[in-house]
């Protein structure tokens, strides 16, 4: 086992020809996009930081946070990330597209569960009057959690689209490269969620 091969992006089982070089460049370009997204998320986090305590007499962190639901959402998203990495591995080591698709569907189902839980939580917030227009704190909370949720939803569309492409065309080099980039996006969203559950929910009720 060579250290170099192990460190290569998962799914980059393309040899060392022109295709592999192109895929590496595409992945780097996708990293640039992810980093711009990181700046967006980071600044929404900063805005949230300025709005902590700005509850204007409305519902605060204690009313807004359901730790049991947050724990389940965290588990679902981490499980989804792990399933996606397993899909990347079965793609990289040519374990057949059936296996790749199964793990992709695990990842998608888990992420869908996350979105459903999040939707139920947000609907509960509306029921107790914790709508975004109630206070600065709630505006920032909805913006941050909503932005992350939208990203997960877009990721799900990506899995759907790639599933169709894999079924139609098989695991070609182009599609492998796309799955690799979607994987980076997927794991990146899990990192953002680590920030959200720690800084928004847990720190809110600590």
């Amino acid at each position: 086992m060579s250290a170099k091969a192990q460190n290569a992006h998962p799914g980059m089982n393309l040899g060392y020809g022109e295709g592999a070089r192109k895929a590496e460049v595409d992945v780097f370009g996708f990293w640039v996009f992810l980093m711009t997204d990181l700046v967006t998320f980071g600044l929404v986090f900063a805005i949230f930081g300025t709005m902590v305590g700005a509850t204007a007499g409305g519902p605060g962190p204690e009313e807004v946070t359901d730790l049991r639901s947050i724990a389940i959402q965290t588990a679902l998203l981490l499980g989804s990330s792990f399933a996606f990495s397993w899909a990347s591995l079965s793609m990289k080591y040519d374990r057949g597209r059936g296996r790749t698709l199964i793990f992709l569907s695990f990842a998608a189902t888990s992420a869908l569960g996350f979105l459903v839980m999040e939707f139920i939580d947000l609907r509960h917030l509306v029921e107790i009057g914790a709508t975004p227009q109630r206070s600065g704190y709630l505006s920032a909370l909805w913006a941050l959690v909503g932005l992350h949720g939208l990203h997960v939803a877009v990721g799900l569309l990506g899995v759907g689209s790639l599933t169709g492409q894999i079924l139609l065309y098989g695991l070609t080099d182009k599609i492998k490269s796309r799955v690799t980039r979607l994987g980076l996006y997927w794991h990146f969203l899990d990192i953002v969620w680590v920030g959200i559950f720690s800084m928004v929910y847990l720190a809110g009720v600590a």
Partner: protein
Amino acid sequence: MSDASDEERAERRLYSIGLILSVVLTVASFATVTTGILPRGWAIPALIVLALTQIVVHLRVFLHIDLTRQKREDLQLLLFTVLLLAIMGFGTLWIMANLAERM
């Protein structure tokens, strides 16, 4: 590709270690808040340290960022972005906290 299965096993092990570490760190974060074992002022610094550790684990295991030359560009891009973000993020918090104080 006789060594492929060894390599595959090593990668699976790495991902599994990453998953276990993430679960341990997440449980530690939740336990910090739900059990209240730490004095009041310590809970939030502990949460920050646990979250940063988990982010590093995710970057290393799931996003394949490491210190090898092959990944140097990704790492530099990430670090530069974090620098920009730190300037803008801390700047925002600093200025807004200062304004709030003067209100």
